[in-house]
């Protein structure tokens, strides 16, 4: 899976949890989940659980704490896939 594929797959997960006032086109690598995409902490957990299923990885509490932006999520996914 290329990085572009991973990003597309992640974006598909995020779009499910976007509030109605945020468009899919607003998602970029630098987007902050909570401050910019208006995703609340409960939905962020859902995103993490969907990411775990989609990429067949397991995230820890530290990963969750570090996952502020879309790029953070991609870095964490990359790291886990290399393990």
């Amino acid at each position, binding site marked *: 899976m290329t990085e572009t594929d991973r990003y597309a797959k992640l974006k598909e997960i995020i779009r499910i949890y976007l509030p109605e006032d945020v468009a899919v086109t607003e998602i970029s690598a630098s987007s902050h989940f909570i401050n910019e995409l208006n995703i*609340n902490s409960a939905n962020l957990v859902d995103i993490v*659980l969907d990411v775990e299923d989609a990429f067949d990885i397991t995230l820890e*509490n530290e990963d*969750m704490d570090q996952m502020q932006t879309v790029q953070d999520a991609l870095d964490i996914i990359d790291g886990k896939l290399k393990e």
Partner: protein
Amino acid sequence: MNHQHIVSHLPYEKPFLFVDELTHVDTKGATGSFTFHREMYFYQGHFKDHPVTPGVLLTECCAQIGLVCLGIYLLQGEGVPMSNLQVGLSSSEMEFLLPVYPGEKVTVHSEKVYFRFNKLKCSVKMHNEEGQLVCKGILSGMFKNTADE
């Protein structure tokens, strides 16, 4: 941690405590009961001349017993101190099948779907004293210990 100890850590009190007794709790779920006493204030207005327990309060009762008591038990198992617990309901999807009238005792049973990153998701069921299913659904909540901050 015994059952009454968990109830004592609930962040609610009258008139918004909807747990009388927690009868069972383990890592998979919780069971408890509550009696909606005839004198409870909301019956004066829900409905005019026809008191029925509001569905939102059945949901609240399910959440306090099924979600919050279970969450406290699970957090305690992880060694989290309970002194500054905050909880927020993050989603609820309930179906209501039978009315609950003033004076009825209900029993709530929950089953954990998952508890990850301080989010607890459970399926809940409420039965009346005849053993009939009153309502059921899926509830999620976020737990936070403000002592961490």
